[in-house]
């Protein structure tokens, strides 16, 4: 179906096979994901693009173990998640996945540090030294001097940095971000994307959903989706070339 742009070196972290996700709305069945095949290796930086409604968020939710596929299999770090129970899924979300949301999802009554500490509360080994770990994570995103600030005392970009620090605090195998810059102005978005680039350089595996063309400057691999399937899966250079040649690539125009 599509060319694979994945590098051949590095361990496979994520493997999706024939992944489908259906929604029933009344009598209608919506195929939000309709057979996705995907392999993600260690330290890849992937941007997922596509029209609105093409299934990007659905894919991210399944990848983040927030949602279960209707069909197909999903392996993360060699473990098949498809058949896991609620408790096991919760612990996968805690240990292996860092999720960044478009709307930050910080708890307003907690300061930055407490927000970042939160996932550690649910980690089996996270109880001790959690504030030190949260501090480190905040420093990593450049917010070492904003620890005691509550969300309403932070700018949009800073809020998203706190959310990223929270996603990183348990050292996840993969960082998932669904339109992390969707609520930010272009300058701040650029800063956040730079941060993702920085994290990638430090070895973090990242999948990011975005509508922004500029992301290509950072991501090494671009996946374009349409109608719940992967349409193209190219390196950023190939993708650039293809879109220049006027190929019918969805998501080219800004939504």
């Amino acid at each position, binding site marked *: 179906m599509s060319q694979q742009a994945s590098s051949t070196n590095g361990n496979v972290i994520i493997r999706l096979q024939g992944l489908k996700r259906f929604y029933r709305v009344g009598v209608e069945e919506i195929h939000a994901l309709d057979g996705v095949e995907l392999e993600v290796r260690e330290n890849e930086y992937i941007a997922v693009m596509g029209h609105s409604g093409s299934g990007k968020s659905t894919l991210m939710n399944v990848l983040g173990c927030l949602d279960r596929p209707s069909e197909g299999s999903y392996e993360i770090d060699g473990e098949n998640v498809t058949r896991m129970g609620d*408790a096991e899924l919760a612990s996968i979300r805690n240990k292996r996945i860092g999720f960044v949301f478009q709307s930050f999802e910080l708890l307003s009554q907690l300061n930055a540090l407490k927000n970042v500490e939160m996932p550690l509360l649910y980690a089996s080994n996270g109880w001790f030294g959690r504030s030190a770990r949260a501090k480190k994570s905040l420093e990593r995103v450049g917010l070492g001097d904003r620890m005691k600030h509550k969300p309403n005392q932070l700018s949009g970009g800073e809020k998203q940095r706190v959310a990223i620090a929270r996603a990183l605090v348990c050292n996840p195998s993969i960082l998932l971000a669904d339109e992390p810059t969707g609520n930010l102005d272009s300058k701040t978005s650029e800063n956040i994307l730079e941060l993702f680039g920085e994290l990638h350089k430090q070895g973090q595996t990242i999948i990011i959903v975005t509508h922004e063309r500029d992301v290509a400057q950072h991501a090494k691999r671009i996946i374009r989706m349409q109608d719940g399937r992967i349409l193209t899966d190219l390196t950023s250079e190939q993708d650039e070339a293809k879109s220049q040649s006027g190929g019918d690539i969805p998501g080219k125009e800004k939504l």
Partner: protein
Amino acid sequence: MKGLFYAFLAFIQFVYQSVYLSLSQIWANKTRSILTTIGIVIGVASTTAVIAALTGLKAKILSQVETFGNNTIIIEVRWPDTGPKQNMSWRQLRFRTEEFAGLLEHCPSLERYALIGEAGQQMVKYGEKSVQYAQIHGVEPAWHDIEHRGIVVGRGISVIDEGRAVCLIEPELRDKLGLEKDCVGESIRIGFRNFRIVGVIEKRPDLGIGGGGQERYEIIIPFEMTAKFRQEFWVWALAESKSPEVLDEAVAELKFFLRRTRHIQPDEQDTFSVESLKSAIQTFNKISIMVTLVAGGVVGISLLVGGVGIMNIMLVSISERTKEIGLRKAVGAKKSAILMQFLVEAVILCFVGGIVGVGIGQLLTLAIAHSNPLLERTYIPAWAIVLSFAFAATVGICFGIFPAIKAARLDPIEALRHE
């Protein structure tokens, strides 16, 4: 073995984590938490106060009863429920002195008895000073041996006083009338007669019925002198069995004797009651248990209402915090962790409500204790506190579990989408 240890550690962490999360949540929503617990606070405060008042009342009454021996018997007129005598006037039905003649010979289990005649309330005067109403009781000398009230000055009523105008007064009346401390030999005017004081007798531990503050005076005179105030007067009697063991026999003998002297036909009901103090105490205990149960029921209902309040607030709080729950699940909170967080929150709210309630109950108890001498022994017994807490915790669990399950079952994505 090692696995067990780690499981134990994990459990401790789990509990600590739930308490930590709940406390921070309660702290973050202080006002609401306070409003939520008010129902429980009121419930627990009223329970403890009611139980305290009852306990105090009981302690007080028992302490008064202690001035009597535990083989004391009270003999009073009582109207029968059926038969022609039920409509008789008190004049017809009252005890007459003759009915008790030869009582001790016919009642071998009886140690002694004393008739008491009621002369009603009379005005008392000494010099310029006077007291409008004092209750005049005529007693036989044996009365002193049954109702053990101390003689402060002088002596009690004795056989030599028969038919003499002598009296015993209480220290309060003595002071009110401006008499000397040792007032033996002085004369006071009771009604239209002069009586010579032969002694000062301790005040009866005040039952306080009819309200505190109002002074009530009693004057004791020889039994025969009662007739000087009223032609026909009300008579009752106190008696004592030889030992507590033969109390029931004594009661039976008394009944048998009085039925005969009062000419009661075999098919007629008694026109009097012979009751041992012990059985009176048992009756009181029964009543107090009933009152406790009724109060308990009322309080139970108020706690139930408080519990429903807690459930309501928890449900509101969960629907407000749906997004937060979604987020917590998204970062790895298990169902059990969410469940425990909310359950512990409800239980802590109830528990704190319980503590504050016991505190307020304590204040109420102090207020009650000072309001009426009858209730001066009011205190909250330990079991009432334990019970309140157990109940508060139960309410917390019962009414917290439903919202907590609701929260735990939320789907993370839907919860995050919630506005």
